[in-house]
């Protein structure tokens, strides 16, 4: 099987795309990364393979598209068995999916609110974001990773968004480490992994990207 069989429609700064890349790297799968220009014009392949949302990431495996990052990571886990990303017991799997679902619903939007607002609204956004971080720390507890001793599904779902934390901290004038030290330690632990370090972009570049995005969207 060659890299041509596995194509990822991608955007370097998207935390959702990072999830898929890390999952593929963990499984040792060769893949072709195709960068989408989300502002210039979406490719034909993106529009036809994800007509419902026209969003990245899309994994195209042997010509068949899989969409929605959490679903793609589940698909990668089921298609290539080793190493397993989800635990084997039904209860542990349900817990992992629940946590991933919470992160999907809350984390990125809470962070986005920080750079999209000013003044009092921004202070509220920072407070809300810290609440989400504290919930993540509850999920993590005293474990090394969300699932226990091994890096797995929930870690993969969460780590990409942390590359945006520096941008949130600068705009919101706060430090994640002050409010969520255990989570900070977890971030450092994950970044030690080759697969993660390879995929996660430089937070400074993410910050520059957000500055441009703000300008483009008309938030000064």
């Amino acid at each position: 099987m060659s890299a041509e069989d596995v194509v990822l429609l991608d955007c370097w700064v998207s935390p959702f795309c990072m999830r898929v890349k890390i999952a593929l790297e963990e499984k040792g799968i060769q893949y072709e990364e195709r960068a989408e220009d989300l502002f210039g014009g979406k490719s034909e392949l993106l529009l036809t393979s994800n007509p419902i949302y026209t969003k990245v990431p899309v994994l195209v495996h042997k010509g068949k598209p899989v969409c929605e990052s959490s679903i793609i990571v589940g698909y990668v886990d089921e298609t290539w068995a080793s190493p397993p990303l989800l635990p084997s017991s039904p209860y542990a799997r349900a817990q992992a999916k629940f946590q991933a679902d919470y992160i999907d619903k809350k984390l990125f939007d809470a962070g986005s609110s920080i750079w999209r607002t000013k003044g009092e609204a921004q202070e509220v956004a920072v407070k809300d974001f810290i609440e989400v971080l504290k919930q993540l720390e509850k999920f993590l507890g005293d474990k090394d990773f969300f699932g226990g001793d091994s890096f797995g599904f929930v870690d993969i779902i969460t780590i990409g968004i942390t590359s945006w934390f520096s941008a949130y901290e600068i705009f919101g004038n706060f430090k994640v480490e002050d409010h969520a030290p255990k989570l900070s330690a977890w971030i450092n632990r994950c970044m030690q992994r080759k697969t993660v370090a390879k995929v996660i972009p430089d937070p400074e570049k993410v910050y520059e990207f957000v500055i441009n995005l703000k300008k483009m969207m008309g938030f000064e």
Partner: protein
Amino acid sequence: MADEVVLLDYWASMFGMRARVALAEKGVKYEYREEDLRNKIKSQLLLQMNPVHKKIPVLIHNGKPVCESLIIVQYIDEVWRDKAPLLPSESEPYQKAHSRFWADFIDKKLYDACSKIWSTKGEEREAAKKDFIEILKQLEGQLGDKPYFEGEKFGFLDIALITFYCWFHAFETCGNFSIEAECPKLIAWAKRCMQRESVSRSLADEKKVYELVLGVQKMLGVE
């Protein structure tokens, strides 16, 4: 040791019904506990078992909680694997991903669209009706000419959608339109599903659902 299964639920919730259908498909005996959501009273047990969202349904299996309806359905499918498999077999990751995608689509889009049909008026209501029909047509497209969403067998994606069916009467009456006229294949599918005991016994009575909606509309000041 016998399994102890409790479901914290609300009679009219299409999300709670999903868990009920799945448990019935598997022939699992469970204790149903009604949460008094109409009067906005959440039990201590609910707050304890779902501290993150404080929402129903919650499945409590031998004292351990599972939350979020689609996650509950998958959990039920994995624990009681031997009877009536709901997600395609292990050898079909693509089919599983496909079903999960469309179930996720239903969760992201359908509930909001249909809530707006009965909770708004005038132009907003008309826009909500349009969105709702558009979403149903997309789902109808996925069904095609198959008896069920995944083919010959009733499964995960059918469960994700069928529980909205008992609310259709309320939407049609509030919105003054016929869903069958717009999506005949989908209604045929719904009636086919309703022939299954697991479905007909789990779904709420559509007239009672409509009465509930009327009551909430009065409270909100919407006709």
